[in-house]
């Protein structure tokens, strides 16, 4: 199988000379869920945000190495194009409060200045909301503001908004950490379905979540990628001592 995303010696630094992510090299395969685990401050979110060039938004953040998405180096592409190819879901659900549910789903198109016909819009909205299992719950309240939904519904709306742009990979930064267990469960089920069409990379500090949903797992510590492999194997027979200590709760 051919990797959809290849990281080669990727380093990110917030202050010169000090790498928050240090020379991470690994491959991500299509239609898998990869969980990035590790203690707070280990650089997992920083690595995730390097993939869709979110670090460009802030001065003084340096990303080096190569991030090859579908054969092209992300660091040499137009960041706007990168971000359309690599959708991101955040920790805190962030539907746009000034837009209706309908407009939230289409926000990616509006924000990129892409005009769609009415039929096309209806189709994208229904399809995207269906794929996050939100359609039945909101189809009669499309004109209401996105912020009127529950936390879990808001997060699914944000996923739908990302899916509407038909990205290659879905980057999720602790997407359930602000949600209750039932909503978390729903999102996890959703991700298992979505991996049939998308490649998902999820940052989580919830180990049981990683065990439940991911095919592969990456363990990061102090900016370095300590171990990356099959999730079951990593949880049962970790190759590295640090990984084992983390998974068994010696530190975290």
């Amino acid at each position, binding site marked *: 199988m051919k990797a959809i995303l290849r990281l080669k010696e990727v380093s990110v630094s917030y202050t010169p000379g000090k790498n928050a992510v240090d020379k991470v090299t690994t491959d991500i395969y299509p239609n898998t869920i990869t969980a990035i685990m590790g203690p707070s401050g280990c650089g997992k979110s920083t690595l995730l945000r390097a993939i*869709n060039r*979110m670090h460009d*938004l802030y001065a003084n953040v340096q990303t080096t190495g190569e991030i090859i998405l579908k054969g092209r180096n992300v660091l040499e592409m137009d960041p*706007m*194009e990168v*971000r*359309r190819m690599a*959708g*991101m879901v*955040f920790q*805190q659900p*962030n539907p*746009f*409060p*000034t837009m209706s549910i309908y407009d939230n789903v289409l*926000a*990616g198109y*509006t*924000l*990129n*200045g892409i005009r769609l016909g009415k039929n096309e819009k209806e189709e994208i909205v229904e399809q995207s909301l269906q794929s996050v299992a939100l359609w039945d719950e909101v189809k009669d309240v499309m004109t209401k503001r996105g912020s009127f939904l529950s936390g879990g519904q808001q997060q699914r709306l*944000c996923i739908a*908004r*990302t899916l509407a*742009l038909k990205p290659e990979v879905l980057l999720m930064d602790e997407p359930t950490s602000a949600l209750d267990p039932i909503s978390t469960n729903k999102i996890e089920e959703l991700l298992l379905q979505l991996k049939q069409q998308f490649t998902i990379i999820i940052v989580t500090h919830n180990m049981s979540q990683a065990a439940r949903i991911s095919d592969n797992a990456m363990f990061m510590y102090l900016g370095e990628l300590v171990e990356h492999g099959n999730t079951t194997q990593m949880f049962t027979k970790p190759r590295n001592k640090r990984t084992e200590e983390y998974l068994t709760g010696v530190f975290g």
Partner: protein
Amino acid sequence: MNKDSIFRFLLSTAALLVLLFTAGIIYALVSRSTEAFQEYGVWGFVGNAEWDPRSATEEYGALSFILGTLYTSFFALLLCIPFSLAVALFNGEYYKGKKISSAVRSIVDLLAGIPSIVYGLWGFYTLRPLVIALGVSAQGFGIFLSSVVLAIMIIPYASSLSSEFLSMVPNNLKEGAYSLGATQIEVVQYISLPSAGSGIVASYILALGRALGETMAVTMLIGNTNRIPRGLSDTGNTMASVIANQFGEADGLKLSSLIAIGLLLFIITAVINLIAKLIMKKISLI
């Protein structure tokens, strides 16, 4: 009495005195304007554009000045919008938290500290010849000149509050938009401005409130004619400027009419400020 209760007593007395001052001002305005309102009726006074102090044909109405005030203030507001919005976006969005933004902020705040009479002088000696040279009006004085100076005077009020509201737009909303491939201008257009929208509107309403009551500079620049201005290049008088110009030589019905204009101005600015406060209160509740 112990220290606590003495302090409490002093505080309540001071607060009560402020209330009494306010009540006293309103009482004085109302009682001394009654003569004019009794003579013409409230709507007769408000709706009449005649202002004739000659004793044989004495007649007073506020309409010319109400319209003069509205013309200058709204035109000033219109002129101030592009500049204050630019400053607000510069400080609250594009250079938020940067050194250059606090420098710009200090300079703009400096504008707010310039005394009105200084603006008047500058308008009189620097802008007026320019207005004449541009051919807007022969004398230079008038609605146009006053509005330009007013616009500059209210830029700091409009821009500092709106940049405050812009910088309050949650970062996770902006990141959400960027993550969908938006450019900065698209984030401003679709996320920041709509989110800060009602706050920005409230800042402009407050700025309008300042423009309505501004007296000294306008009195020096508007040309002081007691009729409805026929256009931007025409001279006129605002409610504040007619009072400033004529109170010294007024008595009887004329004085009462001037005070009535003062009362009307007080009511208009109070209502404008109330509207702005209500909008801002509604935002903070979200």
